[in-house]
């Protein structure tokens, strides 16, 4: 239990620092056993199944691909590893384009989620009594139903024969000259579809942190600002918006980070010719069985996302500190 041995505790009141005294197993069992076990068990689990895989994936990204079982190999001689996968990452346009498509789609989707999610969160936060709970439940409900099925529901909507597509087509044709009328809107298998479904699937992740933030805001601040002569729009700009920045950042990170690495959505509704990076990793891994290359792409993706992930973790930490 060396890794988790308690140090002298600090000035936090919730720390139970029991006076020392007798030593030995019995004493440990009585006083600190629960503490050590509670820390050590999940710690060891996470090191085994979260840290170890990362070390392996980093090692794998430095291996050579071979057609064999397993499909990789390390050099027998120094330096044992190769950087050729990372070199290819930058030289082969397929990968660079994958990253760029992912970042672009994720950014656009995040922005749209914010645009739609913010007023929704504000509306729910301002709703009265039971309505607030009902609306909140309505946001959470799709979040609890299957993610895959939510993507699937849109596949049904976007197909060229669907009522939605046909309705949209007739609507567009109203504005088009008769000669250039279209038969259907080409929605499926495009980055448009990917962005639409990402927005649809991740919207609750934007609304929920925003709601949690907006709900806590003291409405008397708005009243004070209005009392001091501000119009509602000015109050929003000067009071509500600045105070909700933590919620905005949390919501954007919760959408942006997973959306960048999204696999299911681009696989089902995306353009195979311009895939997002998650799909590239999957194809490299499962179709090409090029494990080292897939690992290198994943490691690079992680590097790309490490700043927003750290930012998110920091925010979580600070929120926890605040709750104390």
């Amino acid at each position, binding site marked *: 239990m060396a890794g988790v041995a308690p140090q002298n505790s*600090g*000035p936090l009141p919730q720390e*139970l*620092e*029991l*006076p*020392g*005294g007798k030593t030995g197993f019995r004493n440990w069992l*009585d*006083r600190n056993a629960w503490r050590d076990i509670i820390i050590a068990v999940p710690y060891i689990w996470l090191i085994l199944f979260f840290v170890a895989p990362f070390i392996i994936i980093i090692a794998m990204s430095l291996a050579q691909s071979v057609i064999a079982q397993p499909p990789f190999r390390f050099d027998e001689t120094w330096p044992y590893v190769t950087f050729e996968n990372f070199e290819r990452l930058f030289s082969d346009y397929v990968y660079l384009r994958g990253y760029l498509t992912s970042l672009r789609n994720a950014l656009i989707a995040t922005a749209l989620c914010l645009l739609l999610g913010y007023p929704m969160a504000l509306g729910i936060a301002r709703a009265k009594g039971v309505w607030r709970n009902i609306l909140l439940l309505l946001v959470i409900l799709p979040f609890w139903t299957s993610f895959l099925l939510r993507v699937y529901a849109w596949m049904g909507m976007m197909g060229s024969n669907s009522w939605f597509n046909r309705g949209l087509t007739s609507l567009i044709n109203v504005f088009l000259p008769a000669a250039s009328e279209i038969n259907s809107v080409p929605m499926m298998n495009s980055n448009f579809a990917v962005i639409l479904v990402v927005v649809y699937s991740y919207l609750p992740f934007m609304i929920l942190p925003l709601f949690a933030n907006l709900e806590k805001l003291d409405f008397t601040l708005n009243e004070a600002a209005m009392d001091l002569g501000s119009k509602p729009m000015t109050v929003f700009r000067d009071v509500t918006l600045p105070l909700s920045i933590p919620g905005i950042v949390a919501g954007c990170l919760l959408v942006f980070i997973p959306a960048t690495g999204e696999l299911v959505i681009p696989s089902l509704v995306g353009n195979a010719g311009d895939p997002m990076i998650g799909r590239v990793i999957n194809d490299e891994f499962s179709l090409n069985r090029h494990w080292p290359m897939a690992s290198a792409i994943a490691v690079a993706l992680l590097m790309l996302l490490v700043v927003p992930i750290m930012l998110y973790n920091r925010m979580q930490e600070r929120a926890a500190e605040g709750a104390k």
Partner: protein
Amino acid sequence: MGIENTGKAWETPKTEPFIRIENVTKKFSDFIAVNNVSLDIYKGELFALLGGSGCGKTTLLRMLSGFESPTEGRVWIDGQDMTSVPPYERPVNMMFQSYALFPHMTVEQNVGYGLKHEKLTKAQRQDRVKQMLDLVQLSQFAGRKPHQLSGGQRQRVALARALAKQPKVLLLDEPLGALDKKLREHTQFEIMNIQEKTGITFVVVTHDQEEAMTLSTRIAVMDRGIIRQTGTPTEIYEFPKTKFVADFIGSINQFAGTVKSVTKDKAVVACADWAGEITVDRDASVAVGQNVSVAVRPEKISISKKAPAKTLNAIEGKVIDLGYFGKDSLYRVKLPSSALVRVNRVNDQRGRETERVAQWEDKVWLAFEPSAAILLKD
């Protein structure tokens, strides 16, 4: 059992202290919460630790209960060294500021919780719980959950729970803090009664000086980790030893000055603020030429429009503020030196505003007896 101990044990040199805090220091990283405190508390006392927030009183209490261990020093209870004994093995129980009633247990289960760990039969346990609930008059609420009780009832459950184990010492952390004003006075007397009935030594932490004064046999005034003065409420109020204690307890007027002359039982102090000399009862150790402060409680200064017969410690000033509190009034009087003096006067006569002793802008005479003033050395 409590009766013979309610004598002034602290004045009898041979009495062994029941709780002995010996040169205790507690550091949190760089912050010194309690700084080399030594304190003796005697059996059957209702002792109060009084001070503002962050003065170290709660840390001291937590070291008595065992939730913190001293960085240096020792804690003894009933002749046993408790310094390294964990909370669950100490003969000490605590009533928490938040009451800390277990929300998932009924009143009965809450009170009986501590008895689980004692070697009692089921009947004995039930008996004790009943006895405790009777003591705090909550028998009819035995089956309720804490959230079904009012604040005052919860406070009594917390008290009963802490008493059920018949501890040697009961610690009370801001026992009246969460109660409204009306309920406070009642509860105060209830705590005193229970202490008397059980004879258990009570140690109370409070920031409320009135609470400390009415409840306790003795008070330790704490400030920045140090005990500034220990004494009975009367001693603390009437005979504060330092400016801090004088200022912290109640309100007080202080006039800085220099000792001009000393007689057998009086000292004369020249004060610029008072624009003259003040004669006070002499403290044993003042010498001519020493810088001192003369401190007088507002209620010990008389106020009238007519000049007093004796001119000793009398001065004329002007009322610049008047606060009417119903039972008494507070006057703020400006002296010729432009120093402000606070004077309290009980409104012992019924009357209209115009019938008051003095009004705004009135010229008034202030005076006090030499025995009313306290000499404080700088």
